[in-house]
C-alpha cells in the first residue's frame, strides 16, 4: 500500500529541481511561428516575446524526457503505481515579472506544491497535483506558473445496455374489459367487441356500450383482413423491443373498426393487409399486419 501523502511530502521536501536550460535562446522565428499559430497580429513583438509564450522556451521538444528529479514526473509515477493511471490537466496560472528580450536564455526549475485527494470527480476518483515552476534569466526570476493536473482512476463504465431489439418490449396493461382481446391473440383470433345488447362493434373496447348502455360485451372473431387507413414510419428515438425504422399502421378492418399494429413491408394508405400473430412469450401474443397474399 502506497502512502500517497507521505510520498508527496517527501517529493515536496526535495525543493526545486535542478535548473534546466532552454534548448534555444528567445528568438524571433519562434515568436513569429507562435503569433501565427495563436492568431495574434500585434506588431510589437520584434524585440521582446509575448509573455504567454514563456512555457514554449523550455519545452523539452518532440522526444524530450523528464529529468529524474522532475517532481511532477516522480509524483505521476507514484500515482500510476497506486492505480490512478489517467491524467488530465485542469488549470494553470502564470505570472510574468517582465518582458523577455530576444537573445535571453531561460532556465526553469519546478517544485511540488501540493497533492490533495482522493477526490471523487466526474471522471473518476483521483488526486490533484499542483506544481510551481519558476523561469530565470541568470539568477533573475522572470516568470512563474502554478500548474495543476488530476491523476485519476477512470470511473468504471456502466454495463453495456442491451441493443434495441433485446430491450424488453412494452407490454399492454390488461384488465377485465380487455382480457378477451389478448386471450384471443394467444389463440390466433382477432377478437372485436360486439355489444350483447345492440350488436355495436367497437375497438378499443369498454365495459358499457356507448350506443345502448348495455353492459353485456361479447365479441366476434374478425376475418383479420382490412386496408391501411394511415401509418407512421418511426425513426427516432429508439423504441424498446424494436429496431428502427419500423412501420405502425392503423388498419380499417373489413368489419369496420380500426386496429393498430406493426406492419411488415412497404406501407401505403389503402394497402390490403391481413393480421399475423407473433408470440412474444407464454403470456403475450401481439397482432400485427402484413400485405395480403391474395392480391
Amino acid at each position: 500500500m502506497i502512502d500517497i501523502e507521505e510520498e508527496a511530502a517527501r517529493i515536496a521536501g526535495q525543493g526545486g529541481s535542478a535548473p534546466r536550460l532552454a534548448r534555444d535562446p528567445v528568438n524571433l522565428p519562434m515568436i513569429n511561428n507562435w503569433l501565427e499559430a495563436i492568431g495574434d497580429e500585434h506588431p510589437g513583438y520584434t524585440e521582446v516575446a509575448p509573455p504567454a509564450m514563456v512555457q514554449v522556451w523550455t519545452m523539452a521538444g518532440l522526444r524530450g524526457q523528464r529529468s529524474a528529479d522532475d517532481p511532477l514526473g516522480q509524483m505521476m509515477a507514484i500515482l500510476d503505481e497506486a492505480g490512478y493511471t489517467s491524467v488530465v490537466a485542469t488549470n494553470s496560472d502564470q505570472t510574468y515579472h517582465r518582458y523577455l528580450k530576444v537573445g535571453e536564455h531561460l532556465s526553469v526549475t519546478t517544485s511540488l506544491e501540493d497533492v490533495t485527494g482522493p477526490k471523487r470527480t466526474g471522471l473518476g476518483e483521483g488526486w490533484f497535483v499542483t506544481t510551481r515552476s519558476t523561469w530565470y534569466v541568470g539568477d533573475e526570476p522572470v516568470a512563474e506558473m502554478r500548474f495543476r493536473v488530476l491523476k485519476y482512476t477512470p470511473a468504471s463504465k456502466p454495463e453495456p445496455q442491451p441493443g434495441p431489439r433485446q430491450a424488453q418490449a412494452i407490454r399492454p396493461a390488461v384488465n377485465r374489459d380487455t382480457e378477451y382481446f389478448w386471450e384471443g391473440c394467444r389463440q390466433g383470433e382477432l377478437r372485436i367487441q360486439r355489444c350483447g345488447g345492440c350488436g355495436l362493434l367497437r375497438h378499443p373496447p369498454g365495459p358499457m356500450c356507448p350506443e345502448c348502455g348495455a353492459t353485456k360485451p361479447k365479441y366476434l372473431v374478425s376475418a383479420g383482413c382490412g386496408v391501411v387507413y394511415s401509418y407512421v414510419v418511426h425513426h427516432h428515438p429508439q423504441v424498446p423491443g424494436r429496431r428502427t425504422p419500423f412501420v405502425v399502421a392503423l388498419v380499417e378492418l373489413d368489419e369496420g373498426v380500426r386496429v393498430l399494429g406493426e406492419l411488415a413491408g412497404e406501407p401505403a394508405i389503402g394497402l390490403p393487409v391481413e393480421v399475423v400473430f407473433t408470440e412474444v412469450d407464454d403470456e403475450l401474443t401481439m397482432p400485427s399486419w402484413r400485405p395480403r397474399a391474395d392480391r
Partner: protein
Amino acid sequence: MNAAIVGIGATDFSKDSGRSELRLAAEAVRAALEDAGLAPSDVDGLVSFTMDTNAEIAVARELGIPGLTFFSRVHYGGGAACATVQQAAMAVETGMAEVVVCYRAFNERSGHRFGQVQAAAAANIDNSWSYPVGLGTPAAMVAMFARRYMHEYGATSEDFGRVAVVDRKHAATNPRAWFHDRPITLADHQASRWIAEPLRLLDCCQESDGGVALVVTSAGRARDLPNEPALVEAAAQGSAADQFTMTSYYRDDLTGLPEMGVVARGLWRRSGIGPSDVDVAVLYDHFTPFVLVQLEELGFCGRGEAKDFVASGALELTGSLPLNPHGGQLGEAYLHGMNGIAEAVRQVRGTAVNQVADVEHVLVTAGTGVPTSGLVLGRG
C-alpha cells in the same frame, strides 16, 4: 369574464436549468407577482397541471404564501395550459379566491423528456392499444394523423414546414428564445431528418427546462395594479366524442381536432368575437401539422385550406393573422403552452418584443391531440 391576467413571470428557458423543478416554479411565481405589483401574502389560490411535480403546498411554502383557499389541477398534459387560467378566473368570479397564480415548471430536457418512449405510460389501459405496438412517442402519435391529413387534402411536408419557418423567423428576433438569431429556411426543414414520417425534426417543438407563472385577479382589482390588464374575454375547455389522449384514431374522420372545435365554439360564443376579430394567434405548436388543423377548427379557413392559408403569408407579423410572435414552442421554448399565454399578455399590453400594432384580441390555444383549452385575452 370578470377576471384578468395582471402579472407574468418566467425563468430563463434552457436545456439544463441546473436547479430543481420546485425552484423553477418558485422563481417563476415570484417573478410574476413582482410583475403584478403584488406580494406572496396577496395570493390565496394556486393552479397547475396534473403533470406538474410541484405541489401547490410546496410552492406556497417557498413563497411564504400564508394560506390558500383554492387549489386545482388540470389534466391532459399541454391541453391544461389555458384551462389553468380558466380555473383561476372561475375561482375569482365565484369568490373562492382573490389572487390566483397559475404555474408550470419542469426540467423537461435535462430531466424527464416527454419526447422519449414513456414505458410507464403503458400501464394506462387506454395506452395498451398504442404503446405495445410500437407507437410510443408524441411525434409518432401525431404523425398518424398527419399522414391521413396529407392523404385527404393533398398537404405536403413543405406545408408543415412553413409553420416551422414562420415560428423560427419570429424567434430569431426574440432574445429570450432558445432559437434567437437562428432562423431556418424551408430547405433546412426539408433537409432535416425523419423523426416519425411524415414528421421531420424541424416539425417537432423543442424540449426545454424552465418555468412560467401567471397572476389572475378580478378585473376590478386589476385596475388598481400597475400593468395594463389582459382581460379574460373568454376561456374554454374541450373534449369530443370517442376522445383519447393523443390517439383518437377511431372516429369517423382523422383530419380534424373536434376537441378544439368544442373550444372554438365556446370561445367565440363567450367572447362575442369571431375569427376575423383576432389580431394575434398564439397556437399550440408542439408539432406543425396540428397548427394547420387548428386554423381549420378555429374557423380561420375552411377544411383542407390551411395549407393555402399558411402559404399566403397570413401568419407573418404583417399578415392577417400573426402567429406566435414570440416564436412559439418550436422557436422560443416548450413550456407546455404557458409561455404562449405570457406572450398573449404582452401583446395585449403592447410590450412584446415582436409587437403587433393595435392589438385588441389575442387567441391562445393549448395542447392538441389531447382534451384541450383556449383563451381570448384582450383590452376589454
